[in-house]
């Protein structure tokens, strides 16, 4: 598996600048020292018998024999690792919003979240070690809008959102379980989208035929293209505006230089016009007319950001034909950072996905043979097959059942049972999601990272391991039971 790169080195270096000093620690009320039998610093890198020092919510030191500052809270446990991140969750999304509503690309899941909703499920998830989740509303829509990363340890305040706009999400070929006319279908014509005329009901309640599903791929591609041309128009305007401003400045300079003469000439002309009984006409300069600003379009802006790789594009897609078409249709978007969600039949494309740096969020939950046809061919070996080929694999709970996030570690274990390396499976629920979704201050137990930490009595993916305590941002949110 490829090593996840840190996309934002600035956060780290900024924190380096304010390195820990004892005097500071003594005065801080929020200091925690964890004595650990072992620390999983990052996937595959384990340090034995060390302490972790947390000050003001940030990891400051990971080393043996740290002197415990005064006022520091001391905790201990056999294994300390980073809080788990579910990259594909429905936690906190109201069930009505979760499956299908009428979003547009600029619709933000962040705006639909009730920070105090689903309290019970959140507590369960937190108690099992999940500290952050990427959530997406309206997963069955063609374009579901912008997903958010939510911190589960939050008290509902400023710290709730780890990332308000973590990715643009879309889906291809999802048949609706309530096929045959549900309330979702009624009055749900989506807002007209840039490409002209399609509405979100096309992913609606009835199962689609294969051609319709392939058609959705083309729509996603043309939406991305429309985002790019929007961005080009925007950039062109910025360019023209700059030129215009320069031209104005040039003219003003020139006019200022000849001001006296020009004023004299103008006064004379006014006089003459008066004498002739005519109206004085002010000289027109071509610089008087500024270039026209293009209209701001939030949807196209969101599409442009995805097409430009500023945020990842997550596409839920399962069947071979749709994956093949999606890969073809997006080939020309060189800066696109695409993430496939689900990818039930993506195994056959492993090499290509690795080559194009497309990561896949796998949901290894076993499906019975009665599952919807998009899950035909489901196999618990998928995560292992992809990782083996060098694809960045993330493991998520599928964005349908909010209760599933609690079982994230079990899903990762299942991927291991299906042939994935333990290290890769652990990365798939910690450093992987942090890297793909630009959460550069999370995912590992390293200097400068936010202290989202788990204290465990065994290996993180083991059935018999229990979570003893959880810290989010250095705050103990699940207290150890004495």
């Amino acid at each position: 598996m490829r090593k996840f790169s840190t996309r934002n080195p600035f956060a780290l270096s900024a924190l380096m600048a304010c390195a820990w000093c004892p005097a500071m620690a003594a005065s801080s009320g929020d200091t925690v020292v964890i004595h650990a039998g072992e620390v999983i610093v990052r996937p595959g890198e384990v340090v034995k018998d060390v302490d972790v020092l947390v000050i003001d919510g940030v990891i400051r030191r990971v080393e043996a024999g740290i002197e415990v500052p005064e006022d520091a809270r001391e905790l201990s446990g056999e294994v300390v690792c980073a809080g788990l991140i579910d990259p594909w969750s429905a936690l906190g999304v109201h069930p009505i919003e979760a499956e299908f509503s009428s979003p547009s690309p600029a619709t933000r899941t962040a705006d639909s979240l009730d920070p105090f909703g689903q309290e019970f499920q959140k507590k369960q998830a937190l108690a099992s070690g999940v500290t952050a989740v990427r959530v997406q509303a309206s997963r069955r829509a063609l374009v579901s809008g912008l997903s958010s990363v939510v911190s589960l340890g939050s008290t509902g305040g400023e710290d709730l959102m780890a990332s308000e706009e973590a990715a643009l999400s879309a889906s291809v070929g999802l048949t609706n379980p309530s096929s045959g006319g549900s309330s979702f279908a009624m009055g749900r014509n989506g807002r007209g989208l840039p490409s002209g005329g399609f509405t979100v009901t096309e992913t609606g309640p009835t199962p689609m035929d294969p051609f319709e599903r392939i058609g959705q791929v083309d729509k996603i591609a043309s939406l991305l293209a429309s985002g790019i041309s929007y961005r080009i128009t925007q950039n062109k305007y910025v360019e023209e505006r700059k030129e215009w401003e320069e031209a104005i400045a040039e003219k003003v300079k020139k006019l200022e230089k000849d001001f006296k003469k020009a004023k004299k000439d103008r006064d004379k002309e006014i006089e003459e016009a008066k004498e002739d009984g005519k109206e004085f006409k002010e000289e027109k300069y071509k610089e008087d007319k500024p270039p026209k600003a293009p209209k701001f379009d939030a949807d196209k802006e969101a599409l442009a950001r995805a097409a430009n790789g500023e945020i990842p594009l997550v596409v839920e897609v399962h069947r071979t034909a749709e994956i093949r078409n999606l890969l073809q249709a997006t080939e020309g978007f060189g800066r696109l950072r695409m993430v496939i969600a689900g990818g039930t039949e993506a195994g056959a494309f492993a090499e290509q996905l690795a080559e194009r740096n497309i990561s896949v969020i796998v949901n290894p939950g076993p499906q019975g043979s009665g599952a919807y046809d998009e899950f035909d061919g489901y196999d618990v070996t998928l995560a292992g097959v992809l990782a083996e080929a060098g694809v960045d694999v993330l493991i998520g709970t599928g964005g349908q059942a909010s209760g599933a996030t609690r079982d994230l570690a079990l899903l990762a274990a299942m991927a291991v049972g299906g042939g994935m390396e333990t290290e890769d499976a652990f990365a798939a629920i910690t450093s992987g999601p942090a890297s793909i979704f630009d959460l550069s201050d999370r995912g590992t137990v390293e200097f400068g990272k936010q202290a989202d930490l788990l204290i465990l009595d065994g290996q993180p993916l083991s059935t018999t391991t229990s979570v003893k305590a959880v810290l989010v941002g250095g705050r103990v949110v699940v207290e150890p039971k004495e």
Partner: protein
Amino acid sequence: MLHLALLLAAPVANPDVVVIRADHLFLGHGEPIENGALVITDGKITAAGAAVKAPEGAVVIEHKGWATPGLFGAVTMDGIGSERRDNTRPLMPEARIVHSLRPHAAALAQNLRAGVTTITINPDTGRPCTGASALVKTHGPAVVDPELQLCFDISYGAVKSDEHPTSLASLQELLDEKLAGGAGSFGRAAAGELPVLIRARDRQSIRSASALAKTHGLRGALFGSFWAEGLVDEIEGSGLGVICDPVGIAANKRAMRSILALSERGVKVGFGLVTPANSPLNMRVGAAMCVKAGLDPNIALAAMTGAAAEISGAGDHAGVLAVGRDADFVLWSGSPIELSSSLEEVWVDGQRVHGGDDE
């Protein structure tokens, strides 16, 4: 040439005797045995345990990992296609689902690959008495017992509004009458000869089923654990075991709590496979989730093997590794309770039928 040399060097080599040594050997009940061994002669187990000596000339296989009985798949509708339910009559005690079995059904092989070597094939629920289930080995397949359990559903969904019985009370009365009458399969169930499986989907039906079993001396299992929490007294008093509702990813905590409550009181539990709604792998997921919630791992293992078979009336045929039994077992990389463990080999009747070097 090399093979020949080996044969010559071991003139008493007996390929019909195989010894499997495993780091951890679970026999279907109790605690796993460290460094245990199984001796298999002509497809049957001739010795099992810790201090087992390999007979001279036996083929010895060393397994780094776990060996367990083949998993027991309680309550499946595999291999019967759409022939799951007959809606015409409330009581069909003499119906035998085995007549609907399609031996080439893909679901049977799928079970085998997941380590499930024996399943019960059950008629669908939704009618009060749907006849007898069958016990089937997934390799072959081979019908081991064509009338395993007499199947009942006494949940609300089994009662129709336009056909007697139209209420749960009259259903109870009807079953009381038939079981007391002593004729046919009802009589055999009441005499304890034919085990029962009673679907109990809600609290009400758990109480009724427990009472029915106690009154008529039925043995076997309830099918339905979700609402068992709070009704453990009744269930314990009935003498029935409980085939649990599948516990999947995202399951409500009550599902795990109920199973824990039952096992804490010593009620025998088995995990239901319940296909086709669930994948065969789901049984291990359920076991893992219950262990995470506090269930003893050995009880969870037994609930996939020995205990599940016993309360399904298949205790003489499946679920345990004991002398005289068919050598149906699975070799795992680690404990099957750990979802990170992978299945390495499946053996049925002393033959490797899946995994190993062949693949």
